[in-house]
């Protein structure tokens, strides 16, 4: 029983500590700040070029912004557009109508946070059980 509880506590501790580390590694290695866009129809893209003036945001030449910029991880980067007018921008065409939903870094962090909290609580519970078990054995 003691070995089982300590094993469970050790596993829980690994998840509690490992989840944020894994999230950090994923974010650090694969995270890119991108602006998701809905790409224009070809006619619209050509029209936007004609209508553009110096105030026209570069994004609008390529598509319509899909929310503000967001940090994505583990996504197919071959579709990234670096507009020549502003190479610092990373535009990612995303077709929500076709079910595309790239993974966001904040989702990874959210999952890691709750995995860590959940595992931490589990470890405390297991250690509590172990302490109770140890005390009852000593009493007997």
């Amino acid at each position, binding site marked *: 029983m003691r070995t089982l509880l300590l094993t469970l506590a050790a596993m829980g501790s690994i998840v509690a500590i490992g989840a944020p580390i894994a999230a950090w590694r994923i974010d650090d290695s694969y995270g890119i700040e991108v602006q*998701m866009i*809905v790409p*224009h*129809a*070809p*006619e*619209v893209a*050509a*029209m936007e070029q*004609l*209508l553009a003036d110096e105030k026209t945001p570069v994004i609008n030449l390529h*598509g*319509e*912004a*899909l*929310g*503000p910029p*967001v940090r994505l991880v583990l996504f197919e980067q071959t579709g990234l557009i670096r507009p020549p007018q502003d190479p610092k921008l990373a535009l990612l065409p*995303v077709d*929500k*109508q076709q*079910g*595309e*939903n790239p993974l*966001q870094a*904040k*989702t990874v962090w*959210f999952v890691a946070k709750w995995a860590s909290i959940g595992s931490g609580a589990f470890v405390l519970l297991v250690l509590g059980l172990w302490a109770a078990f140890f005390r009852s054995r000593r009493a007997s």
Partner: protein
Amino acid sequence: MSILRNVILLAGLFGFAAPLAAQEYTFKVDSKFVNIAFESKMEVEDIVGTSRTVSGSAKLVKGGGSFDIVVPVESLKTGIDMRDEHLRGEYWLDAAKYPTLRFYGTSVKDLGSGVYEVAGKFVLRGVEKALVVKVQVATIPAEKAASVGMEKANWIRVRAAFKVRLSDFGVKIPDMAAAKVADEWSISVSLFGKEVAK
């Protein structure tokens, strides 16, 4: 003739055409060239979605106009089918009972430089709320439209961004979803309307 027509169109749209007060232009939304994006920022994820199915029209007269834009709830997609089903469900937008979102009104005020203030009613889940939105309108003469492969007709391009609160329309976010879905949604609209005969 087409040059004269474009001059009249532009003058009418920008409110400089006093002698042309009776001129009225009707534009019908072309759903091929529509993008509606919506966004809900939350801790777990920024939910973003789109619709590319919009119908409606706008009438423009000197110094004013009216509009009526309709979006089927079924056309709203967030990239996850199960989430879309929830969005259409009875606790959210209740698509079975209220199949469309609508924005309509009869107040169009010219603010200059192609910016208009439109005021009307936004209808979501059968609840109507007053909404005032600034829209950017660009006029596109027929020749220009034809040069990029669009139908040879006068067009307008309309861009707008605004926010709505789901709670204003009777949507009560369940506690379970409170971390995932914000009450306030940002909506941006880009559409092209083609001039049609009255």
